[in-house]
């Protein structure tokens, strides 16, 4: 019993946070929607529907928060998700996508694939630089042939900046 209660605490905090987030997003949408024209019921303006959505989201947010306080667990703790993100993986995956954007911008498809795969691969705790380089090289070759030549992607394959 004490174990279950101990587990419920982060769940409760999480639900309160979720509810408040929904409330904030809903109110934000409501405020934003008010800057568009609401129109009349027979001739709805562009702001009417977003305003309804925002209002409902805020209401749902309140309900989630209230039921979290009331203790009726809104979320089932069925998935064993860790509470803290894996920062190394996080950083490398995000950086991998950014590397793709940057390299595709300046030098084309092949370097972009190489960079994205290499950076992302280093996010694994067991990764080695050699393994990452090999994987990135392989993917760059396969990807360039597949997307560049066979599927004709609209991006230069390789260019000097």
């Amino acid at each position, binding site marked *: 019993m004490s174990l279950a209660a101990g587990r419920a605490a982060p769940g409760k905090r999480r639900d309160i946070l979720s509810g408040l987030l929904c409330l904030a997003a809903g109110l934000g*949408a409501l405020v934003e929607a008010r800057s568009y024209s609401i129109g*009349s019921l027979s001739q709805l303006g562009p702001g009417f529907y977003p305003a309804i959505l925002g209002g409902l989201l805020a209401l749902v947010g309140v309900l989630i928060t209230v039921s979290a306080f009331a203790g009726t667990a809104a979320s089932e703790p069925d998935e064993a998700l860790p509470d803290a993100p894996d920062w190394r993986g996080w950083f490398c995956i995000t950086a991998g996508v950014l590397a793709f954007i940057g390299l595709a911008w300046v030098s084309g498809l092949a370097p972009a694939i190489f960079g994205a795969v290499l950076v992302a*691969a280093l996010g694994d705790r067991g990764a080695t630089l050699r393994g990452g380089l090999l994987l990135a090289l392989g993917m760059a070759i396969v990807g360039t042939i597949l997307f560049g030549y066979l599927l004709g992607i609209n991006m230069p394959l390789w260019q000097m900046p």
Partner: protein
Amino acid sequence: MSTALVDLWHGFAVALQPDNLIWCFVGVLIGNLVGVLPGLGVLSTVSILLPLTFGMKSVPAILMLAGIFYGAQYGGAICSILLNLPVHPPHAVTCLDGFPLTKQGRGGTALGISILAACIGAAFGIVEMTFFAPVVARFALDFGPAEICSLMLLGLLAGATLARGSPLKGIAMTLFGQMLGLAGVDMNTGTPRFTFGVLNLYDGVELVALALGLFGIAEFLKSVNRVAPMHVSGARLGFRDLLPSRRELREGVPAMVRGTLVGSLCAMVPGTGPTIASFVAYAVEKKISRTPERFGTGMIAGVASPEASTHSSVQGDFIPTMSMGIPGDSGMALLLGALLIQGITPGPLLISEHPDIFWGLIASFWVGNILLVLLNVPLIGIWVRLLAIPYRVLYPCALCFVCIGVYSAKNSLFEVGETLVFGMIGYGLIMLRFQVAPILLGFVLGPRMEENFRNALAISGGNLAIFVAHPISAVFLALCVILLAAQVYARFAARGRAVLPRTPPVSQVED
């Protein structure tokens, strides 16, 4: 009835054209592949391939994308049965009895049973679609904006509340998804909404970017360094191992029939995808069994029934999408998006206006399922060996496919950045225990719902009573109320009691 068969005959002529046949094969092959591989989802695969279909003709494009959906169901069971990894939600419940069978050395039999169940379930689902979808479409022809709006509301509510997790949070996610769907320049008035001055957003949020952010990037962020390396036991599986004994068949076949019926019923209810169908089937099977306590220790029926249910519901799920234009779950929402991109408006007129697509699709279901059995039965050993590919190799490659896929949707790098943002948002939402799938449903339905809402009120001259004055619309709204009331009742009546069977945790961290 006979017209349906004549039309289906025509459909086979379409599906068996070499071009279409090849794309159907490509679809089911890719589907089967991602179904087997843990860490690659069906939704992200379809999203990656979606931009590639922009240049294709509409029939092969739809056949291929649909093939990925049902093809993945064949592969998904392998992971559950052999590794106890419920990475593909519709097959999560198969772990409960599938993995104990593997531990007893009967993993091959369990796989054989799952393939047989797949055939029976899929066949029934396709027959259901053949005869039922045209009837539904004829019925839906009379729908005006008010009916469509109420029906969409029902679909959204069902999708949000019947899925796993908190119903309130599900509703919040459909609302959020609808807002994302509204972003961009309003069609009627030209007002930019929710764009915050970003010019690239004037066209609206890109469907592919949203789907790949939520189901691709967010999934990588969640799973990196958390998927334990696989140790495949019984990696040498051949055709012979799949054959069930006569006793196992006697146990399994009736369960498959029951599962099929449950699945086809679930397919009728909007918002209940294959995942729910499989859970309900398992619960039913356990309830009517004479030995319910033996479930979870390797019962054949515990594999047969949910598997049949999943497959019949996956096929049946196409019915509301193709006959009314109302997708039942996020996967079908994606397919609906693909149809819209091809310039085809899904709805009751689809069957009469695009018979090639509708009947070709049904015929391709038969062809595709036969191809899948041919792919799975003799080649099961190859699929099983694929399980050994480690996640650290998979995710960087998948990430690069995601980037290229999003880029090719609009040939713009802005969308790649958009995907990253949605990935982070999606990860945060998953951490807060929101289900992200209803976002996609809301995203696709939101703009169409607003349009129908506007039209309904324009017709009635601003009188909101139109939604209850039209009898069909009133029925849909009544169903919405019943659905909500049932949720509230269930919350207070069964507090703390688990309605659905528990499955092992998705991510297994190895210390």
